[in-house]
């Protein structure tokens, strides 16, 4: 078959200038590796961010009163759940649920004699495994204990700002359901640094009982937060917990803002990928254009033999396809190795996280290997290569046979 011969010719033509072919392979492979690595890094970063938020802040599922609005941190009884313990027990009975606990939120002002700052107050059950991640973030002192009376846990950064430390007494003012501020004196039992700014910068923790009493909320809670063993069970558990008058929200809904940011982020990164693809494309176009110039006379001979422009074009496109396939294969392998390596070992950023204070994902970045993405990137690489090769191939096809024969 003629096509088979074209493949053979394309393949042998690539072997003629081995050095150039190898350099082109390397360019494709490295370009693809870079794109795959970037993709792994970004996916890893976003995954990590989401994982941290879920672990430290939102949980997989929350149950709230239908009228509850997070931004208002309302303490009105109609915005709170009055049978939180019962709901928690119902959820805890489900095999998919790993931990569940009610939380009471309030907005407050934390102050010393000279400084004050507004904070979000979280009333938590110190014994619940749900707050282990916060316990792990303890940098000094101890976690809330017992009924937590008179105890407060604050962020290390917050403590530094206010110039207080473990054992110091501090003032906390919160609103109560009637809007009348309630003030209390608390002893700082511990300082935390979870690496997650949303927690470290503007959060204080009281025991649930303590929070309920200072706000006069009885045994009500703002939310019942649930962690699952497997994030994929979210929809199922959400469905099972539906209760009239309450909203049951999954982690997607709870992290709507991050989810949209992720989507926009991904779009922005696509531009970076496109730039790398473009660089590789230019290299390919150059390689093939050089090949066309070198072989101008041969193209004339082939045309004299009656080969049509279309067929000459096909031959050069086959050449590009071989370059693209083999280069991409190396790129996939190399990219997978690099991404896999850093997904295990992480990329260490030193203490940058502490200095910048904005890294939600700690001081090491872990890449995420998504096999489907490897092939998606390779596919796009191939599409780009073949597309840019249309120009040199078209150029070759369009050569007039006599002009091609004159060359040399």
């Amino acid at each position, binding site marked *: *078959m*003629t096509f088979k*011969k074209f493949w053979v*010719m394309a393949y*042998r*033509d690539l072997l*003629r200038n081995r050095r150039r072919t190898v350099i082109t392979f390397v360019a494709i492979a490295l370009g693809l590796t870079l794109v795959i690595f970037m993709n792994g890094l970004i996916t890893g970063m976003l995954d990590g961010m989401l994982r941290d938020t879920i672990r430290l802040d939102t949980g997989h599922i929350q149950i709230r009163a239908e009228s509850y609005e997070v931004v208002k941190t309302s303490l009105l009884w109609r915005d709170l759940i009055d049978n939180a313990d019962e709901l928690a027990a119902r959820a805890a009975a489900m095999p998919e649920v790993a931990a569940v606990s009610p939380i009471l939120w309030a907005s407050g002002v934390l102050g010393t004699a000279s400084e004050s700052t507004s904070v979000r107050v979280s009333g938590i059950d110190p014994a619940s495994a749900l707050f282990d991640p916060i316990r792990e973030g303890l940098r000094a002192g101890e976690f809330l204990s017992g009924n937590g009376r008179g105890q407060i846990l604050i962020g290390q950064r917050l403590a530094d700002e206010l110039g207080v430390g473990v054992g110091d007494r501090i003032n906390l003012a919160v609103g109560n359901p009637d809007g009348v501020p309630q003030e209390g004196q608390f002893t700082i039992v511990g300082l935390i640094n979870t690496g997650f700014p949303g927690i470290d910068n503007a959060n204080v923790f009281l025991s649930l009982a303590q929070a309920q009493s200072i706000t006069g909320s009885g045994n009500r809670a703002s939310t019942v937060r649930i962690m699952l063993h497997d994030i994929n069970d979210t929809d199922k558990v959400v469905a099972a917990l539906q209760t009239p008058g309450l909203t049951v929200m999954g982690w997607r809904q709870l992290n709507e803002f991050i989810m949209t940011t992720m989507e926009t982020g991904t779009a922005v990164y696509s531009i970076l990928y496109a730039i790398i693809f473009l660089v590789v494309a230019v290299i390919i176009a150059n390689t093939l254009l050089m090949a066309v110039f070198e072989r101008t*006379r*041969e193209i004339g*001979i*082939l*045309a*004299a*033999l*009656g*080969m*049509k*422009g*279309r*067929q000459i074009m096909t031959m050069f496109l086959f050449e590009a396809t071989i370059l693209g396939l083999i280069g991409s294969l190396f790129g996939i392998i190399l990219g997978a190795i690099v991404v896999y390596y850093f997904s295990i070992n992480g990329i260490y950023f030193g203490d940058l996280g502490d200095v910048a204070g904005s890294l939600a994902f700690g001081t090491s970045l872990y890449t995420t290997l998504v096999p489907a993405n490897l092939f998606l990137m390779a596919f796009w690489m191939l599409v780009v290569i073949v597309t840019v090769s249309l120009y040199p191939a078209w150029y070759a096809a369009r050569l*007039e*046979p*006599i002009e091609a*024969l004159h060359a*040399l």
Partner: protein
Amino acid sequence: MAAIELEHATKIYTIGEVETRALDGVSLTIEEGEFTALVGPSGSGKTTMLQLMGCLDKPNSGTVKINGQDVTRLNANQRADLRREKIGFIFQFFALVPVLSAYENVELPLLLNGVGAKERKERATALLEAVGLADRMDHRPDQMSGGEQQRVAIARALAPRPLLVLADEPTANLDTANGEQAMDIMARLNKETGTAFIFATHDQRVVAYAQRIVKMRDGRLVDGNANGSAK
């Protein structure tokens, strides 16, 4: 039927302001099976004439007919079809495809013409034997001498069983012995296959092989040989 007919064919090359009438109203008929030498001083228009006959180029005016068909109005693809089926080319440089072996070079026009595998093999092998290269089939062009390469080119030109073979100074890059061998082969294949051959040449020994001699000067035929056979 005439293999090829030129009627008042004119080809003008324009470079900047300068116009060259490379072919100036030439009328010439070549019959099937003729063995013709095209002679004339350098620049007289021999190559230009072969290019028009070979459908590699179009005349500015006048017509070129191959087997009675006017080819001047054909588009690039149609001319490619015509070249593939009816015309073989032999060039001064040994114009083989460098990445293909001798056998594959001869086979290529057959592939392009859609000849079946078995017949391709028979015909390519027979032709390579006919040009004395049965033992060089798998050699690449760079593994063969100039004389051998030109014999492969002869075999390739004849592979599609063309109406005519156009050879532009086929012996110019060959030594005497190889040049004569190539001419012997072409003369023999001309008789055996009935394919017409037209040579553009300066070489008197090539001219000696010709049945008919067409003389050119300044893009015109030198009188007395415009039509019909010389012998």
